[in-house]
């Protein structure tokens, strides 16, 4: 039997911590103390917790009590929610929001997290990519030279505004899609949840900086074509995590990387070049996670069918907004002079070839043959994302 000496500590001052600690290690404890209220507070505390007072005596201002621990406990049927550094194959709903590795009391809610299978959500690279992502966060207020001179012609500024309008729309889709899955991932797969959260935050920042760049000189934005929104709508409505990740992050953002590099390289001002460069840096991480994730679980036939299905849905739409295509040509041309336009046009044609190459490389990394990769890349949405 262990002996707990409370000295003058009272139950209104935390004495119960010492008693509870003693009872955790021993079914019977003796408690001694000199607090004048101990003979009242201790039995009341025990009564509320089911512990029995076997003896209680106060002599010479010292109270002594013998306590027998309650036979029942909140933790009798508790279980560990896995271990801190290893994920399980399937996370039970009853673990809910508990930290991975916590001792979880039985009972309580069983919230629905539909993405609870390691085989569907997990990638070993998630922790490393998350660390990388948090280290690479940048502050839009200070990372972009917003006051850099804008001395290009007004028509080029109009082209930039149109491109930024297009980017905001696409980045909004890239925010909404992972946000929808984020709330479905079982928190047991903490690193994936965190990575998706940073991805959402990345896109929020992109939406901010593209909007801000568009409105540096202009009070109105460019156009948003129905076909572009139809293309993005198929991403937002895709219910399958792997397919959505494949279409958005691998094929869509994979195509966007050359586009952002193109904007960076042809930007007439530092602000435009910087927003494109920093966004590309984030997007590269999103592509890397999707590739790592899909390399483990991709059902290639399912992915192929998804590309073909999306192609069929979008076949009757107009494809890329002509205003965007023209704006890219003008950005690369730098002026309306015919030779410049010819150069700009060739650069955009080369960009679409770059995008195709990037997509095929990603598809081959996922195990598609080069012939399959070529076919699937050609079926990718003409909207780029």
């Amino acid at each position, binding site marked *: 039997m262990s002996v707990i000496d409370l000295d003058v500590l*009272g139950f*209104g*001052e935390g004495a119960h911590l010492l008693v509870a600690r003693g009872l955790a290690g021993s079914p019977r404890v003796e408690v001694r103390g000199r607090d004048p209220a101990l003979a009242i*507070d201790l039995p*009341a505390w025990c*009564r509320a917790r089911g512990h029995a007072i076997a003896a209680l005596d106060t002599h010479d201002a010292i109270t002594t009590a013998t306590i027998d621990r309650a036979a*029942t406990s*909140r933790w009798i049927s508790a279980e560990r929610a896995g271990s801190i550094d290893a994920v399980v194959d399937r996370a039970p709903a009853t673990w809910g929001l508990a930290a991975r590795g916590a001792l979880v009391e039985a009972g309580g809610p069983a919230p629905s997290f539909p993405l609870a299978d390691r085989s569907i959500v997990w990638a070993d690279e998630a922790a490393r990519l998350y660390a990388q992502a948090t280290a690479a966060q940048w502050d839009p207020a200070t990372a972009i030279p917003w006051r850099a001179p804008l001395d290009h012609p007004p028509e080029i500024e109009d082209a930039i505004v149109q491109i930024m309008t297009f980017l905001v729309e696409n980045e909004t889709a890239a925010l909404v899609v992972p946000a929808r899955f984020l709330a479905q991932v079982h928190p047991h797969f903490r690193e994936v949840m965190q990575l998706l959260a940073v991805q959402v935050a990345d896109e929020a920042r992109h939406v901010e900086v593209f909007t801000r760049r568009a409105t540096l000189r202009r009070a109105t934005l460019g156009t948003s074509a129905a076909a572009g929104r139809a293309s993005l709508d198929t991403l937002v409505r895709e219910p399958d995590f792997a397919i959505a990740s494949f279409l958005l992050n691998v094929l869509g953002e994979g195509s966007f990387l050359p586009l952002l590099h193109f904007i960076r390289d042809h930007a007439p001002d530092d602000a435009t070049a910087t927003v494109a460069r920093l966004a590309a840096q984030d997007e590269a991480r999103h592509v890397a996670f999707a590739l790592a994730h899909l390399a483990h679980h991709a059902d290639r036939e399912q992915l192929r069918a998804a590309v073909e299905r999306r192609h069929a849905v979008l076949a009757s739409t107009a494809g890329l907004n002509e205003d965007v295509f023209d704006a890219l040509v003008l950005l690369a041309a730098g002026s309306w002079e015919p030779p410049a336009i010819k150069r700009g046009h060739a650069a955009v044609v080369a960009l679409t070839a770059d995008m195709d190459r990037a997509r095929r490389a990603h598809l081959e990394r996922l195990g598609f043959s080069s012939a399959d990769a070529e076919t699937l890349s050609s079926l990718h949405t003409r909207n780029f994302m």
Partner: protein
Amino acid sequence: MRPFILGAVAYDPKVVTIWEGFRAWLETRGLPFDYVLFSNYEAQVDAHLRGVVDAAWNSPLAWVQTVRAARDRRVEAILMRDTDQDLTSVIVARADGPIRSIEDLRGKRVGVGAGDSPQATLIPLDHLASLGVTVEAKRHDVLLGKHGDHVGGERDAIRALVRGEVEAACILDGNHALFQREGTAAPGLLRIVAQTGAYDHCNMTVIDGGGAHASRFRELLLAMRYDDPEVRPLLDLEGLREWRPGRTSGYALLERAVDRFA
């Protein structure tokens, strides 16, 4: 067939959660169960006597009232919580004040709970009266009719003591540490001047056997185990670890108080 109908007093919104939970649990075990909530114990006692409910989850005062009003009918306490047994009340004064013993309270202002609270008014005032000490009781009537089930009356009595409006206050033993932990009274501020004898608190009362389902109801509640995660939230809400067979040996102090103050 009529379900087993329980009467309970709604002293807090959680009462709905508690008895909805019991209803679901009992019904999955084949006991047709329903409950009726009353805003005060007097209405519940009256309804019980008229057969509106088969059992009443009674305060100790409601138990005494039922026994007295039932006259020759058979009134039983079939269940109670482990936490209903062997409670005491304490009379506390300021540790930095002049009140050191019960004798010092003679003629003084003493803060008590609601006028119908057994633990914070009736039993401690009777304790003082039985020792020949007459005081000026200052009531803190939080939710009168609910027999002190709401802790607010006792808390107000302690606040009055802290502010110096009364010389002592009467509270349930378990609330002595609680009021210090929650900050109502700073640790070291209170001195316990007296403790009443032990008494029992609530019980599940039936009249004339309580109908066809009463024994099954009693068996099921006695079988509830705190280790069972399905049951534990209900027991936590109702404040017990286990149901025990009812006993009526713990109401003598309250009977005496009711006789004295009625």
